[in-house]
């Protein structure tokens, strides 16, 4: 007897108990459904649940107790028997005034709650898995050396230098270049879209800009690798003698900047639109030009929200992986030259965790410490951004 067969049997019995419950309800009502408290279908569902829930619990318990093995004939009979016993007792006690609907709905609500709790479970899972392995890492490698070390030189034979600072520097440098591209372009685009553009231009340009956010990051990565990298190397870095590598901080930063433009522009657009028209009318009425109104009235009023948008974009940039894996290089360096290859936290998480990994070596476990720092960093930025945006929204509501 195999597991699929047992499952099939349980499904057939569950359907059978639904039909039996419906028929029994009509029977106790003497064939007149109006005498029932709940619809016959509710009674059917209730009986099905009375069968399915105990069976499912029994099956799960049995599988946990003896994983891998196929259910023997004893289990084959015992698991449905538990469910059938529960269903039979309900069948016998069913009366016209039984509140089957309330019970079915309570079970449905339980399912809904269970599904919402998955969000919490995911967060707890992330935090636990990161904390657990990070603790293992810090048992093997001193935390001070990790957080303040300036050399990153993992060596799987042992005796590695796993300093976090070069990775943090690379991450911040790439993100800063990305923001230097995305913030001016995104902000000006948002201002133009909300204050100047005609509705027709908007309907065409807004989706076009937002398409940039829908393109998978691997596409940007390849774009950095085969187009932007060689372009920057051949036209800027090599003639100026700044570097000979296609993969560089500037390459990754530039491409990431393009990717983050819609994050800045969409959110800023919403926020600029939320600035009350009366402020604009007041400023224009005093004789200010449109651009003066924008610069001196609208933007200051929208500033907290824009700061929030920029923070969200920054958190996106810090957590971005594929663009830096393909565009920034793998050498951990503390350097100011933007045309040199550097590396980021996310690149090193990928490189330490792909391929053959040994989950007791600090060189592998360091990826979890990096992941935890990344998680904390982006979470902090997000929460800060949300607080700022929320506070600002309350102002005008």
């Amino acid at each position: 007897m195999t597991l699929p067969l047992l499952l099939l049997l349980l499904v057939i019995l569950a359907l059978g108990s639904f039909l039996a419950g419906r028929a029994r309800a009509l029977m106790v009502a003497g064939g007149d459904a109006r005498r029932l408290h709940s619809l016959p279908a509710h009674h059917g569902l209730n009986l099905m649940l009375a069968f399915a829930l105990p069976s499912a619990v029994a099956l799960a318990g049995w599988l946990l107790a003896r994983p891998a093995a196929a259910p023997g004939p004893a289990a084959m009979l015992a698991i449905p028997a538990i469910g059938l016993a529960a269903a039979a007792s309900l069948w016998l006690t069913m009366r016209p005034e039984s509140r089957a609907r309330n019970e079915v709905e309570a079970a449905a609500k339980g399912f809904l709650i269970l599904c919402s709790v998955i969000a919490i479970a995911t967060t707890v899972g992330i935090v636990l898995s990161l904390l657990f392995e990070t603790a293992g890492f810090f048992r093997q490698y001193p935390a001070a050396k990790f957080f303040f070390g300036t050399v990153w030189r993992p060596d799987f034979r042992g005796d590695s230098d796993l300093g976090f600072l070069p990775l943090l520097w690379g991450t911040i440098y790439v993100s800063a270049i990305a923001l230097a591209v995305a913030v001016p372009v995104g902000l000006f685009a948002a201002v133009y879209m909300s204050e100047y553009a005609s509705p027709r231009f908007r309907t065409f340009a807004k989706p076009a800009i937002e398409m940039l956010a829908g393109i998978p990051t691997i596409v940007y990565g390849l774009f950095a690798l085969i187009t932007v990298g060689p372009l920057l190397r051949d036209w800027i870095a090599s003639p100026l003698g700044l570097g000979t590598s296609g993969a560089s901080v500037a390459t990754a930063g530039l491409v990431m900047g393009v990717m983050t433009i819609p994050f800045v522009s969409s959110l800023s657009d919403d926020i600029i639109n939320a600035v009350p028209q009366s402020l604009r009318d007041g400023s224009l009425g005093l004789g200010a030009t449109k651009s003066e109104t924008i610069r001196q009235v609208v933007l200051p009023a929208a500033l907290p929200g824009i700061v929030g948008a920029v923070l969200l974009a920054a958190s996106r940039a810090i957590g971005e992986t594929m663009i830096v894996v393909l565009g920034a290089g793998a050498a951990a360096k503390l350097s100011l030259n933007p045309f040199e290859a550097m590396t980021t936290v996310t690149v090193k998480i990928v490189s330490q965790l792909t391929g053959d990994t040994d989950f007791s070596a600090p060189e592998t476990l360091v990826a979890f410490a990096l992941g935890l720092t990344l998680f904390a960093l982006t979470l902090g930025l997000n929460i800060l951004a949300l607080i700022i945006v929320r506070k600002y929204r309350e102002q005008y509501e």
Partner: protein
Amino acid sequence: MTPAAPASSLLVPDARTQARNRAEARFRLYGLAAVSAAILMLAVLMGSILSNGLSAFRQSYITIPVTLDAATLDKAGTRDPSGLRQVSATAYGKLIARNLQAALAAKGIATDGLKPKDIAALLSEDAGARLRNMVLADPGLIGRTIDADLLASGRVDGFLKGRVTEESAAKDSKIKPAQLTLVSAMKGAGMIGLRLNPAFLTAPDASEKRPEAAGLGVAIIGSAYMMIVVLALSLPIGVAAAVYLEEFAPRNRFTDLIEVNISNLAAVPSIVFGILGLAAFINFAHLPRSAPLVGGLVLTLMTLPRIIIPARAALKAVPPSIRDAALGIGASRMQTVLHHVLPLAAPGILTGMIIGLAQALGETAPLLLIGMVAFVRDYPGLPPAGLADPATALPVQIYNWTQRADPAFVERASGAIIVLLVFLMLMNGAAILLRRRFERRW
């Protein structure tokens, strides 16, 4: 006495007004420039991918008559399938090489200075294997002479597509300029040419040495399996969570906690979900590495918040009067939601669902960590058991190809991106269509 000229006129702007108007025009221009720059980048990105990748859909084939010599391919002469199977792909390769030389001689194309080995090297190492599969499928071909389309090697393909030149060949250990001269002559004689390459979409990945044979078959199946898992899990869970939070949840700290969690999870970097998948599903639950099942689970966790948020918005958009009417004629709250609110919100929920799926389809980083980056040549089996077979995924296959040394793989990677983008466009197009068709303003 003439009246004094007016100090200023509304019709003649003074210097300051002119400066202010110029500043206004400049400011407006900056805005337009920013929008144009963003759109231009989109165009450059698309142009770069298309110009690099479109050629991946065409491949060079050498067309020659091949005599399927019974003495080599079926020594026993019985056409017995198990006997035919014992003849290796290498033997077929040698057979093809002999036929190629004969064909060149028949057309009178000079092969001076080229050893037989160099002529055979014009063909892909996969050409023999493909011919062998053809013969195994139809043993009746043995003994006949057929006009066969044989896969050319990656460098020859690159030459016909303009990627490989005489100068680059001089520095290349894999091809000689003399071989390229021969290819030019063959092209003149109509023996070699580019044609559509459906194998790019159906064939499995090929090794480092055979870019010309590499295809997306396994990756497309793997991605499809993962989307099945994501859809099967995140649609019910996402809708249930949204319904609970929007329709049933009391306002208390527990509900707040769930909401804060969902909005934070939507912003957690995708690679962190990869770490979670590695720690929870592979190291803790001992699920197989490289399996679409695990990839689908990880992507489900990642996509759920991105589905719940639009689903809640769709539920919120259903006016309270609908609920009041249903409750007023005696429906329970669950009946109100299931019979009235949910059907009205369904188009919005589905739109959010499709967009979430499209994001999941393009996601790469978390899949790298759970081993989807492995080299897989075997097609996974049919679901449900096939969900646990090793496979790759479209975006990971692209990453994989970018990591290989042969420049022919760049073309493959760009071609794969075109395939990925076509899928994404279809999904987003469906979402837009759904919204246009069913959107309701109350």
